[in-house]
Structures are given as structure tokens and as C-alpha cells.
């Protein structure tokens, strides 16, 4: 008989995939270390982030316990709730920094687009799963409609970053379900062709961000400020970095949003190219492990969900890093597990919880 503590520990960990858990833990640790520097060693906010992490971990663990069939049953209600809340935001949302994203409910306020990030791919996966015996073109069309509704509402807020993430997560589901390559290519071409249309529909500040990307020095005090300062931070980090808490860009107030969207710049400035390579390596490892879980899973719904969740994590990270190093416009996407903030962490926790649940219940055939 083993002593109590290790047994307890084991029973807590058993449902979780140890590889994925270890990778997430390492990334989170890097996040906490970087954050400590980014918030000028303020212990209050640092411990607030620790609380956020605990909440996210709890979410992950709880969701991991739930059989996937139960989770799947939530797809429709969650999706409907998300869309309803988005409509409520459009009608009665609070405007912060020119965008209508927040909804007041009683004492607190929520950002329904976070819920939609998870609910949309779930809904599409659920729908395709229902019709898996005879998947036809029209089912994919319906899938696109299910994707377009929340996407349109989020675009209207406007929240380009979140819209991009929702669009990607839904697209991954459709792609993994067997959307023809021909259609994928056509969609990409259509997307390129619609750029001028999109351009005319953009808000001024969004256009500015795109122009800035093409030439940040055009408007160094305005829209280009974020990008220039972030690139200086990253570039001046060099191969080995300036050392933890010694980033001049980060600590002389040059770098805006340095504990949230631009935290990667702090990391790259202080830990250099080598540190950045390690972090990106870890992110790749997380995504590949997620895809492995997807590959080992049984059944269409788990497969689509596992694939979409892993690829979404990749998208979050790639969009954020791309934005910080000046290859994508500034769209306001946090770096998962690294940026400060509870909401995105909890969303991550829920997502990885589903992935863990898929892993745990991979062998089981859900009964009707």
C-alpha cells in the first residue's frame, strides 16, 4: 500500500495526459517569470495572475473529468447562449476604446466573444458529427453558416483579432472533417480577392494598423508606435538577451501593453533569440502533442474538437508573435499562457480540459 499523499496525487493526475500537462506547466512557468519582469516586479499583480492560473487549472481538471458525450451535449446550448449574448452586446454593450465588446450583467461585465471562441467549433463539430454517416456538401455549407453568424457579430464590434481566432477555429473543424482541398484553395483565393472589399469596410484605426504594418515608420508617433517599439525591443535583445528584468525597452516605458499583448517583446528582449526559440519550441510541442491526441482519438466529434483546439492554440500563439515582430497587423490577441489576464487563461483551461477529456476517454465508445 502506497502512502496517502502519492496516492492522492496519482488519483488527481491520472485523468490527465502527463506529456501535455508537463509542456503546459513549462510554458506557464516561463509566462510567470516573464510577467514578473513585465509588471515591474509588482507582487500584487503577479499573485493575481497566480490566482488566474489556479482558476484555469481547476477548469482544466474539472472538464477533463467529464465524459466527452456530456460535453458534446453542451454544444448547442452554449452556442445559442454565445450568439444571444453577442446580440445583446450589439444592442446594449459597453463601449471601451471605441469597440462594443463588453456586456454588463449585474455586478460584473463579461466579454461574450470569449465563450464563442469555444462554442463555435464545438457547435460545428457537433453538427457534422450528427450527419457523419452521409456528409455532403450542404452540411459543409451549413457549417459555414454556423461559423458566419458569430463571426459577423464579433467583426461588427469590431474585434478583428477575436474574429480571426473564431474564424480559424471553425475552419479547422471543417478542414479536418474533410472539406475538399479544392474548396480550401478557392476560399483562400476568394479571401484574397475580397481584401479590397474588406478594406472599404474597415474602421479607420484598422486601416491604419494595416498601413503601419507595410511601413511602420510612416506614423511613428501614432499607429506605428507599438510596432516600432516592439521591434526595437525584440531586435535589441540579440542572441542571448539583456537578462531577466533588465530589458531597457520594457522598463523605460517604451513598450506599450507590455504585460498583455506585447509580452513576447519583453521576453524576446530579455531572453534573446535563444529564449524565443525555446518558447516557440515548447509551443510547437504543445500543438503537436495536441494533434497526437487528436490522431489517437476515436469518433468524429472528438477528432474534430481535438484537432481544432490544438490548431487554435497554434493560431493564438502565431498571430500574437507575428504581431509583436511586425509581420501581422496589431489585432489585440494575447499570447496564451504568457500574457496577463484571467479571461483568456480560463478559456485556455477549458479548451485544454476538453483535450484532456478526449485523451482520457479515447478508448471509449460513447453510447447513445
Amino acid at each position, binding site marked *: 500500500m502506497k502512502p496517502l499523499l502519492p496516492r492522492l496525487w496519482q488519483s488527481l493526475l491520472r485523468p490527465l495526459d502527463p506529456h501535455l500537462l508537463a509542456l503546459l506547466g513549462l510554458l506557464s512557468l516561463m509566462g510567470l517569470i516573464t510577467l514578473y519582469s513585465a509588471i515591474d516586479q509588482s507582487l500584487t499583480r503577479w499573485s493575481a495572475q497566480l490566482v488566474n492560473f489556479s482558476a484555469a487549472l481547476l477548469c482544466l481538471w474539472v472538464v477533463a473529468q467529464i465524459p466527452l458525450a456530456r460535453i458534446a451535449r453542451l454544444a448547442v446550448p452554449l452556442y445559442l447562449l454565445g450568439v444571444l449574448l453577442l446580440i445583446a452586446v450589439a444592442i446594449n454593450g459597453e463601449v471601451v476604446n471605441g469597440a462594443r465588446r463588453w456586456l454588463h450583467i449585474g455586478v460584473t461585465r463579461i466579454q461574450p466573444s470569449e465563450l464563442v471562441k469555444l462554442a463555435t467549433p464545438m457547435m460545428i463539430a457537433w453538427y457534422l458529427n450528427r450527419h457523419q454517416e452521409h456528409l455532403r456538401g450542404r452540411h459543409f455549407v451549413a457549417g459555414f453558416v454556423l461559423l458566419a453568424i458569430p463571426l459577423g457579430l464579433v467583426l461588427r464590434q469590431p474585434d478583428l483579432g477575436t474574429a480571426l481566432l473564431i474564424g480559424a477555429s471553425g475552419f479547422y473543424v471543417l478542414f479536418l472533417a474533410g472539406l475538399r482541398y479544392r474548396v480550401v484553395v478557392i476560399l483562400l483565393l476568394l479571401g484574397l480577392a475580397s481584401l479590397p472589399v474588406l478594406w472599404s469596410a474597415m474602421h479607420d484605426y484598422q486601416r491604419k494598423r494595416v498601413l503601419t504594418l507595410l511601413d511602420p515608420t510612416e506614423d511613428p508617433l501614432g499607429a506605428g508606435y507599438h510596432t516600432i517599439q516592439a521591434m526595437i*525591443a525584440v531586435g535589441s535583445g540579440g542572441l542571448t538577451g539583456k537578462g531577466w528584468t533588465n530589458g531597457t525597452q520594457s522598463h523605460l516605458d517604451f513598450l506599450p501593453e507590455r504585460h498583455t499583448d506585447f509580452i513576447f517583446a519583453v521576453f524576446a528582449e530579455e531572453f534573446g533569440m535563444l529564449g524565443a526559440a525555446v518558447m516557440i519550441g515548447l509551443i*510547437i510541442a504543445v500543438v503537436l502533442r495536441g494533434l497526437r491526441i487528436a490522431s489517437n482519438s476515436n469518433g468524429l466529434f472528438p477528432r474534430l474538437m481535438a484537432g481544432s483546439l490544438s490548431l487554435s492554440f497554434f493560431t493564438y500563439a502565431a498571430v500574437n508573435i507575428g504581431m509583436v515582430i511586425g509581420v501581422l497587423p496589431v489585432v489585440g490577441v494575447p499570447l496564451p499562457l504568457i500574457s496577463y489576464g484571467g479571461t483568456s487563461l480560463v478559456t485556455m483551461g477549458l479548451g485544454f480540459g476538453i483535450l484532456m477529456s478526449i485523451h482520457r476517454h479515447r478508448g471509449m465508445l460513447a453510447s447513445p
Partner: protein
Amino acid sequence: MRLTTHHEISSDREYQVRLQVAGVFIVVVFVLLLGRLLVLQTLQYDYYHTLAESNRISLVPSQPNRGLIIDRNGIVLAENRAVYTLEVYPKEVADLRATLEDLAGVIELSDSDRRRFAKRLRESPKFDSIPVKAFLSDAEVARFSANKFRFKGIELTTHLFRSYPMGSVAAHVLGHVGRISPQDKVLLESRGQAVAYQGIESIGKDGIEKTYESDLKGLAGYAQVETDAAGRGMRTISRRASIPGNTVRLAIDIRLQQIGENAFAGRRGAAVAIEPATGDVLALVSQPSFDPNAFVDGIDPRLWRELNQSPDKPLTNRPLRGAYPPGSTIKPFMALAALETGVRSPDKVIRDPGFFTLPGQSHQYRCWKPEGHGAVDLHRSVVISCDTYYYGLATELGIERMHDFLERFNFGRASGIDIEGERSGLNPNDAWKRARFKEKWYTGDTVSAGIGQGYVLATPMQLAYAAAVMANRGTAFRPHLAKEIVDLQSGKKRRIEPKPAYQTHFSEDGLDRVRAAMVDVTLPGGTAAQAAAGAPYRIAGKTGTAQVIAIKQGQKYRESEIDERHRDHAWFIAFAPAEDPKIAIAILVENGGHGGSAAAPIARAMMDWWILGKAPGETVAQAGGSGR
């Protein structure tokens, strides 16, 4: 529902292939990102290194001019001064202590400067510059500049500092600004306003400065500056001008405010003057006061302790935060309650033997006049302030009716004035007492409440507001300090419209009777006759005293025998001219003794200024001064 199916091999293979496609895609994207990083961090390292290290091109924020605060006539109450400041970059100084000693040989460094510096050094992130001395004189600037080579890591900069040219006058109204503290920063970030504060160093901490922060703050500008390798020869490449904050014009008449403050002559207390027809707060006096200039650059911790621990409590905003028993000033409102509810007719005469007893009880509730007032009707009860009349009236009304009626004059509720920290006072009733003390309401409680003692508490603001509502015949305008916001850029003015807070209906006859009695209070035979003597306009007023300590049964209150801080508080409320009120006032003198002699003369001096334009010392006002 079915989650799994017996997939055909082909479908499973197709899925695996797609996963592999995705995997390859991911790796390719990340390799591209890594490639970009490689370019930035190795190939272009030198370029970015130069940019970051020597800050060859840096963005220098330029402070905006904080908006002015002016009184209703345009007299400046808060402005900005350009000040030379010495700032230390601790990271660049090898031996901080020795450097400071060295510096003390060139400019004067007081103990207070050193203490503040030490405090900031502890609180600041290590890359920040820390001001070591502000308000440098021209001579000091010259001496430092000549010796600058000795002080690496110390820079001379100019800053805009908030300045309150009138010093302690109206300090509680204006509040003050202070440096943005780490806590402020967290708060601003949580509200998403951190970017708007880049380049801004101070923030409104109290009073008007805090309430109208978003109007006053302005927007910082930026200059893109190029420097040579030695850090000299700055060349500005481009700039965006800062945008000054909006001017806030107050309803306060600063002369009236000064006259009120001076009339306290060192005594503690509060005065509030309101224009009944608009709710304009014309004066808001809190004595003693303090100099807000001491807070602007971070207050010396020792001075802070002194202000905080002084028994005179100069930092307390008495008119809003001081809750005192209203004493006899509650009587006009009680008299109106008697008429409005029909509990007592105006002609009903009671006999005052000098005390009141409840049926079946021996406890004597004494009138302030031991021998009694004899026959008293409603009119006379106000004029001579007969307590016995109101003891009886209160029991006849009962506490609930009394509570509900007083609520119509805003007792027990904050007025909603536009600065923080107002207390609501206390308009007690049975439900309140049960909630607060878990005890039922006794008739004896009602008796004391009838003369504004016992549990009843009111702030000077509330009494001024109540007087204004009386003066305005039941229409209440929310008291407000700011009158207008002026945008300097566009010249646009945003008026803060007087808006009726609520309306309450009284019979004309009842109002006229109570107001007539209040006028007689200030005429010969009334309790405030002396202070009002010789005024060319008619004043409706009411005196009051609020007990600080209880006097035992059968014992006499002798002012001379009681410690100064245990003496009664003196009250006076008034509005004038009585026929067409232009000003409603409440005065409280802490431990001042009698309302008629201590408080009323202050009101007289203020009314003389507002109605006649005569300052104390000029002929008319002297009559007011002689009342003391």
C-alpha cells in the same frame, strides 16, 4: 447521440493525412516566425541595439497644461507653473549617498527633500528617474548647470506644477493633485486609461480636482527627438503638441468664500452658502484649512502626519463630513411639519413652565430657559426657540411622521454635491434604531429628536440645502460646485445646468407663516437680532446650539466651567432677502456656544457681501461684526 462510428479505413486515413498536413503547416509557420526573429535579433541586431541603447531616436512626452479652475467671476484658483526640477537616475549613479552630499554643496537640500527622496526611491521601479528637488531658484539652476559635469545621472528638467495661488482658501473644495502613485497606475490600467496618462505626472486626488479629472487632465504631446552619441545636440524631428485640459468654472464666489473663512477668525467650523434658485454652491467653508500646494509634489511625510494627527482635523471637509446634531435649527422644519400635518394649528398656545414631562414619567426635559417662556404659540416658538413647545410637538407627530417630513428637506440623505466624501447625516426612526441598536424606539427618543438632539445628525451642507428648499418654496436644486466646463481648443462651453433634484409641495400659508417667524428671529426680540441689526434687507433665520456633552438632571450648563472642546456647537441657518431669497446659508461654529452670537455674524458678513457687495470693514458690514 452517437459520437463514434465504425469508420471506413479510407475516412480514417484521410483524417490522419489532414492532421499531418496541419502539422507541417504549423512547423512551417513557426519556422518562418523564427526566421523573422533571427533576422531581427542577429542580422539587424546592431541597428536595433543602437536604437534601444543610446535611444538615438526617442519619444519624449510633453506634459499638457492641466485645465484651470476658476471661480464664478473668473478668478484663478488653480493654475500651472513651470518649475525647474532636479531628477536622479539611480541606475546611473554609482554612490547615491555621496552624490547627494556633493549635490547639497551646490543646491540647498532640506531634510524634508531628503525624506521625500528616500520614500520615492523605495517606491519607484529601478529604471525611473526620481525627483530630488523641485522649485529650484534661478541661482540654483545656474550653480547646478556650471557644475553639471560632476553629477552624472542627475538631470535638470522643467515640469509643470499645479499651483493654488490662494493657498488654503477653499482648499476643501479644490482638493489637490498629487503624483500618480503605483496604486493609481494599477487603477488606470484596469480602466484602460493608462495610455491616456502617458506623459502626465499628476492626477486629481480629491475635491474638484478629482471629480473633474477627465476634463482637467488634457492630453500629452510627443516629440520625436534625435540625439548624438554624446547625448547632446538634440534635434527634434517631429512633434505632436499637447492638448491642454478644459477649464472648470466653479459656482463659488471666492470673495464670499474668503469673507466666510476670515469671519471664523481661527475658530473651527463650517459654512455653506447656496443660491436657492440654481443650487449653485457659492461658498463651502471648512475651518481650519490646509495648503494644498504642499501635496502637489508629494507631501513631506512629517507634514502629513502633523495634518492627520492634529486635533483640529484640518483635512476633514467639515461641511460635508461633519455630522452634528442640528439642534434648534430643526425647529422651522418641525413647525412646518406641525402645520402641514395639521397636528398643531398656528394659534394653539402651550404653557412652558421651563420643562416638559411625558405623561406618567418624572424625567424633566428642560427648556433652554430655566424659568420657562410662559404662553407660546407656533410663531413665538420659532422666534424665541422654545424647546418645550417642540418636545410636545414631536410626541404629537410621532417619530415616523417626523422622519418622513424631514426627509422632504433631505435630512438623512446626501445632497449629491459634485465632490466626494459627503456623509448622509441621520434622520432616525424606529426601523433605523432596530437595525442599528436592536432596540425599539422610545417616546423619549422622539422628545429629544424634536429639538434636533438625540440621534438626529445633519451636516452643514444638509442644513444649507434644507434652508434653500425652504427659501425656494419646495423646489430643490441639487447643490453643485462646478458651473461650466470650457474647452480651450474649441472655445466650446458646457454649462452644468441647474436641475431640480426633486419637488415637494407645501401649502403657501404654512410656508408664509414659518418664513415670517424666521424673519422675526432676526428682528428685535428674536435670538439673532443682534447679528442682523441694521441690515437693509430682511433675513429669515434660525439659531441653534448642539450639545456636545449631556448635562445631568438638575444641573446647570455653565459655559465658563466647561472645557473648550466640550462646549456647545453654535448653528445658524438663514436665507435672504426674505421676500426673494438670493442666498441660503448654514453656519456651524464648533464649540462656539450660542448660535446667535457665534454663528449668525458670520452669515451676516457673507450675506452683506453677496446681497450688497460690501466687504467686512466697510460701513454696512460693521454692524454684522459688532454682534459678536
